[in-house]
């Protein structure tokens, strides 16, 4: 800082600085000439003193900024000299940047969607990899149970499995929907709270429990006309009678584009495992 302010003071007196340097060196060499009596030698040295002056002047100047500013002015002069080239270069740059932005906008819109999760930065998908075949697959239920009880890194671990189901009831024609079988803690882990009724409870995933189902907002709206009395009604999911216990808010469709949720009930006979999260 001390250096900086001193340099600033000298910046406006550059000519004075040059004259002082000149005088200082001249004095030095004249004294030397008088002492040695060798005037030509002193003269010769004064010529060489340009280097010394240069070094000293650089100490006092903002050498980097000053040369940078010279470069900028040189560049502007050259650009002004060849307006045709400048125009073409600017058009090329503009088109390039424009195309870049357009591609980014399209890709960003096409490949990123709302996962329905609040804290994506703290959410991980747990899976297994077979290194010999470089194949990835989900986690079996026993493994999931072990992971959930042993984990110290994760605040909560839930599992889901996707399947496509037939939904039928006494109101209208059966429809094909995506159903996520999800462990009872799934709504807690994915931070989804129902707008109507409740989510899953621990009892719901016990083997032999009364089958329950939670609907997404859009199924509730499109198929059941947003009637609150839908709670407690029985519908058939793949021919299994299930009681509607809750409805989730709009735009909350985790995982992916699921339409309804049923509890993931452990089944020793199941071969393909669910995905843990």
């Amino acid at each position: 800082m001390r250096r900086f302010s001193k340099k600033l003071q000298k910046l406006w007196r550059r000519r004075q600085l040059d004259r002082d340097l000149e005088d200082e060196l001249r004095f030095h060499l004249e004294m030397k000439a008088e002492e040695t009596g060798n005037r030509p030698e002193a003269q010769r040295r004064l010529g060489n003193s340009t280097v010394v002056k240069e070094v000293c002047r650089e100490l006092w100047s903002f050498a980097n900024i000053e040369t940078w500013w010279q470069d900028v002015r040189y560049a502007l002069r050259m650009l002004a000299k060849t307006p045709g080239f400048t125009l073409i270069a600017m058009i090329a740059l503009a088109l390039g940047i424009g195309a870049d932005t357009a591609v980014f906008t399209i890709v960003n819109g096409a490949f990123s969607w709302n996962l329905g999760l609040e804290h994506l930065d703290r959410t991980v998908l747990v899976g297994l990899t077979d290194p010999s075949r470089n194949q990835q697959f989900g986690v079996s239920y026993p493994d999931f149970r072990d992971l959930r009880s042993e984990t110290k890194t994760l605040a909560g671990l839930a599992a889901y499995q996707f399947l496509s189901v037939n939904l039928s009831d006494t109101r209208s024609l059966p429809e094909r929907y995506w159903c996520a079988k999800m462990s009872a803690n799934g709504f807690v882990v994915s931070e989804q709270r129902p707008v109507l009724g409740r989510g899953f409870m621990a009892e719901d995933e016990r083997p032999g429990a009364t089958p329950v189902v939670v609907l997404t907002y859009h199924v509730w709206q499109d198929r059941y006309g947003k009637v609150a009395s839908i709670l407690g009604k029985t519908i058939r999911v793949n021919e299994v009678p299930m009681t509607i216990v809750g409805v989730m808010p709009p735009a909350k469709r985790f995982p992916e584009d699921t339409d309804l949720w049923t509890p993931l009930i452990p089944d020793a006979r199941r071969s393909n495992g669910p995905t843990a999260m």
Partner: protein
Amino acid sequence: MGTAKRRSGGELVQGTLDMLILKTLARGAMHGYGIAQSIQQLSDEVLRVEEGSLYPALHRLELDGMVGSEWGQSANNRRAKYYHLTARGRKQLQAEANSWERLAAAIARVMETA
């Protein structure tokens, strides 16, 4: 013989020029030429300080606030730039002298054992 003598003298150990300048100025304000003369005489003509290294060093010390300067009249009535030690420079001189003493003593000890 001649070359050996020149090599063993006159060349300053790196970083000691600043210390020698500060030490010289500790005895009073002086112009660049006087500083060079003083160092040369006190070292029995072994150390020669040329303007090429003296003035950049002086200006660097001035920028760092180790020395101050003002223009005055020399003994033979010429305009000359006189340098003087600042409080900061005095402190720096003390620190450099201490570390030089330690270094010189250490080198001496090593050379004696050989």
